[in-house]
């Protein structure tokens, strides 16, 4: 049942031009970053050959590529998540789901997975670009997988937050702006932290993504993203339940 809902979200996304425009523009940007990094690698290759423990192509090309994917997710998830619940409320289509034999959790998870499936398409392209490097060299699969895991966790967290904010309003644009603000805030929250063990570092999304970008998979970072996602999914379920109960 969750997958029926997820499939419905995907279908509706792809029925509108928004999804295609977003995909096309994102892939163009990612491709530009990718080619840029290849150029940079080409330019410094002679110097690298002289170094004893030189960084490989994965470090020079793939890591920055996925760092830019992370930034792109930050900018695009709000655009895609805004309509998940806000538009259903505005068009008054929520009763269809509410009066069907579904639990609130199923509704929320269906929407969440639908968005994640779309984001998987967004991430699939840079992954293919990275894999194409196998044509001319060897990749560090650990670093690549670390980056993929990091981006996947990032996408899940952003989607959960976006879904929650979308449940708060009937105006998709407000949901988009709210999500963008919240995500940017969490991204930059540690900028003003002067002490190295400040709690702000712990809250910052970027601090938890950086290790993945370097190929480090820490349980702490995984737990951060898992808790982040779970918290906002639970909040969304509760929010919808309260709407049914409250006035």
């Amino acid at each position: 049942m969750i997958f029926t809902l997820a499939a419905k979200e995907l279908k509706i996304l792809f029925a509108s031009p928004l999804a295609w425009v977003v995909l096309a523009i994102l892939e163009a940007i990612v491709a530009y970053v990718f080619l840029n990094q290849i150029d940079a690698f080409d330019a410094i290759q002679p110097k690298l050959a002289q170094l004893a423990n030189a960084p490989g192509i994965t470090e020079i090309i793939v890591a920055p590529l996925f760092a830019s994917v992370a930034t792109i997710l930050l900018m695009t998830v709000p655009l895609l998540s805004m309509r998940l619940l806000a538009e259903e409320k505005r068009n008054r289509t929520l009763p269809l789901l509410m009066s069907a034999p579904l639990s609130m959790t199923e509704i929320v998870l269906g929407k969440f997975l639908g968005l994640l499936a779309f984001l998987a398409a967004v991430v699939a392209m840079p992954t293919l670009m990275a894999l194409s490097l196998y044509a001319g060299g060897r990749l560090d699969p650990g670093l690549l997988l670390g980056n993929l895991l990091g981006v996947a966790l990032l996408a899940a967290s952003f989607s959960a937050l976006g879904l929650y904010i979308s449940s708060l309003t009937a105006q998709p644009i407000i949901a988009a702006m709210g999500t963008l603000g919240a995500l940017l805030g969490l991204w930059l929250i540690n900028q003003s932290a002067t002490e190295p063990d400040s709690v702000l570092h712990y809250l910052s999304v970027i601090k938890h993504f950086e290790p993945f970008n370097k190929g480090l998979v820490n349980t702490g970072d995984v737990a951060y993203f898992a808790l982040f996602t779970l918290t906002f999914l639970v909040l969304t379920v509760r929010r919808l339940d309260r709407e049914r109960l409250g006035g």
Partner: protein
Amino acid sequence: MAQQASSVTVSAHALYRSYGSRVAVRDVGFELRKGEVLGLLGPNGAGKSTTMQILTGNLAPDAGSVHICGIDLLEHPRMAKALIGYLPETPPLYRELTVDEFLRLAAKLHRVPRHELAGAVLRAKQRCGLAEVGRRPIGSLSKGYQQRVGIAQAIVHNPEVVILDEPTVGLDPIQIREIRALIRELGGEHSVILSTHILPEVESVCDRVQIMHDGQLVYSDTIAGLKQFRQGHSLVIGLRAPPPHAELQALEGVTQVEDISDTLVRLHFNPGANPTDALVQASVARGWGLYQLSPTQASLEDVFVQLTQREETEALP
């Protein structure tokens, strides 16, 4: 006894619901049996939609209980909701999907088994006259067709109870007739609750009627009962040379005389004491020049006024 219990499809008991300090539904309770069509009548804001939202599990009541075919809606919402088809005031349609896709989705969400999906969608389309527009996106359909898709969505999983909130709004007269025929047909095998503020609609479709006012049920009876209730106790007469009110008042049975215009007068009379004969004779004898005589049937508004005023006078000590 068990037979009897199972034929009750909807049983609502003492439902209360308020929005903030405004009470939208107050002590509403009723029972609906299999095969019955119940009309929920009332002016805007009377609590019809709220009641329907509660019955379909879209809104939780502050107090009270709802049983669908014996299953508690609040305790086992999923089992109970599977037995309900609901068309809200605004049809919940995804404009991007085609009619076929949408009905398929609605059927899947209501757990119609995979191998029955195609048949269920086809039957719903045929019943609602949507056979030719299956491949069109819902957004491109006219309002009447969208309304029909809304109804199709509510019956696609063949539910025991169909709840329709103002199903004929926005339809042209021919479509209204078709939809009414459909509702009557549905009433044969399912239980139907529909809300409306069009009295003839209730009379032509429903077996029973309940009138809501200010969140309360103020009237509940069969259609025959309503017709009798509506039988007017007044006449509108046109007189070219109207006499003083006292003379009209003197006619047997007349309780009240009311001017509508210079020559039109409304006579209220006691039930069972129709003064028409006496009036015609008096008019001829005294030269009042009677040129119009029409018994009035109480309009819906009159029924409301009567019902609500009765409530108020009963409330007085």
